[in-house]
């Protein structure tokens, strides 16, 4: 009898700590809402649809930041997804067994490099390169609104490039794990029907589709919230434009740059409201991504161990 009550205490005791983790997530949402009430009640929906950002007269609209965040993250995703999937396929399906672990380790290493190091490298190595690229762009192309703007180096293109590199390891390590867990009967069946290697891989991808979409979304969530590296190369100029060359601004960057300068409460609340939206978007993206990965997990017998690599040992 004593044993079972001891076991209960153990379960409840450790459970209390586990509940704390849940509490933190809820707490973030609650605290951010509480600290942005002034701005929420004053501007309402207008906050998300207007572009004035005038701390002096106390008029705030966050559209350019939302635009910059979504645009840079989507561009990064377009660049990163084919590469991340290619890596995942190569490591799990094509690579010689001997190379698998080292290649997985090296690509995961990209996730371990601190954001500030990416930023430093971005400012001093990548931005000058992007500037050369922009100068070399033929005039005919510069007529397109996509390539309009001065060749500064810093700007949307630089931000998208660095973000792409930063999210590749997140998408590829999860996609790799998914592919590894696709039952080999799937591939064998395809081979038995006379499929080529690539056709068999396509079958495996089809089987793991939901998980792979989850992997890509995980990368998207990362790209949305990335702060320092982007702040250092995007140029920090709030404007809504499709141009890749023009400097722009993101939600995370404006918080990083202006938070300590926010002299009055409304200004601070406006910045925190941007943080709140960023929180809501990233939580939603992450939830959908994890659910997709988990739904995949339920379809296979072998458990998918979410790679520890991606969270910790990268």
């Amino acid at each position, binding site marked *: 009898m004593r044993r079972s009550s001891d076991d209960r205490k153990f379960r409840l005791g*450790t459970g209390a700590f586990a509940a704390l983790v849940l509490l933190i997530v809820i707490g973030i949402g609650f605290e951010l809402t509480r600290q942005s009430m002034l701005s929420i009640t004053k501007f309402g929906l207008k906050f998300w649809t207007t572009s004035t950002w005038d701390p002096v007269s106390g008029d705030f609209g966050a559209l350019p930041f939302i635009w910059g965040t979504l645009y840079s993250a989507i561009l990064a995703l377009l660049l990163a997804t084919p590469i991340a999937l290619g890596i995942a396929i190569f490591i799990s399906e094509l690579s010689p067994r001997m190379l698998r672990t080292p290649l997985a*380790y090296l690509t995961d290493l990209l996730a371990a490099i601190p954001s500030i190091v990416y930023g430093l490298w971005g400012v001093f190595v990548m931005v000058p390169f992007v500037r050369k690229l922009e100068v070399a762009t033929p005039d005919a192309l510069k007529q397109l609104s996509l390539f309009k703007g001065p060749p500064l180096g810093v700007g949307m293109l630089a931000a998208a490039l660095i973000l792409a590199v930063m999210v590749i390891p997140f998408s590829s390590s999860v996609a790799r794990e998914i592919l590894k867990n696709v039952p080999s009967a799937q591939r064998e069946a395809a081979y038995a029907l006379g499929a080529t290697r690539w056709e068999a891989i396509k079958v495996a991808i089809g089987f793991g589709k939901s998980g792979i979409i989850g992997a890509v979304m995980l990368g998207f969530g990362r790209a949305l919230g990335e702060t320092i590296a982007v702040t*250092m190369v995007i140029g920090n100029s709030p404007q809504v434009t499709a141009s890749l060359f023009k400097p722009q601004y993101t939600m995370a960057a404006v918080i990083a740059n202006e938070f300590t300068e926010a002299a009055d409460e409304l200004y601070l609340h406006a910045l925190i409201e941007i943080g709140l939206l960023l929180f809501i978007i*990233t939580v939603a993206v992450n939830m959908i991504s994890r659910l997709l990965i988990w739904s995949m997990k339920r379809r296979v017998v072998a458990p998918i161990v979410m790679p520890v690599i991606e969270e910790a040992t990268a």
Partner: protein
Amino acid sequence: MTANLRRRKLFSRFFEILCGLAVVIALIPLAMILFYVIKEGAGALNWDFFTKMPKPVGETGGGMANAIAGTLILIGIAALFAVPIGGICGVHLAEYPSTKFSSVVRFAADVLNGVPSIVVGIFAYGLVVLPVKRFSAIAGGVALGFLMIPIVVRTTEELLRLVPGGLREGALALGATRGRAVFGVIVPAALPGILTGILVALARVAGETAPLLFTALNNRFWSTSLTQPIASLTVQVYTYAQSPYDDWHRQAWAGAFLLVMIILTLSIAARLAVRRLERMNRP
């Protein structure tokens, strides 16, 4: 071989090569970053960097002694509360892996891991800075701790699950309670792995900049006070990188080099620890 099959095989080959190319493309930036960090950073790293204070603008030399101390203090505060919370939470998830509560908590930990670090910074600002109206080392440490918790949770859980089931059964068969079995036998078996996991988590948050900008702020002077703003390696590198001075750029690279070296060493150590645990599992 029919023309159709030849075409399909060629097609297959083409895509296989593209996948290999993807690996190469991803490794180029990695190689370039490591190359520049070593080239620019290793040369700038010297004894002064570790022992001297930052020099005023215009004077060359000096170091980041205060920032190094600051980073150590910040991650110390973070570990102080993130390790117990994350560790015990990880124990719970490993012990009761399939309860509904565990699924929800695991999900929350994964979601928390995906929350942008700058948002976690705002949370710490609201909790610690606002009530006393002062930036402080504690606020920075709290922000880093929140970021550390999900990493510790998942690493602890994964590593505990690697412990051979026979150990647990043996302990229970000897009449140990669940708590005794876990903390007396299972956790010690996984401890080297968990400790390296914690070190990696520490290295990870030591590389964070964004959540420190408005919690720990920065400090040009030597400070170890927990209630005052404090310098950190990352914020210092950030400040220096944006300055117009060559000597500051040099020091920024040295700081980046130091950060990368710490992270590389610890992640290799973690690899080895996990491999050791996995070997224990084999009959």
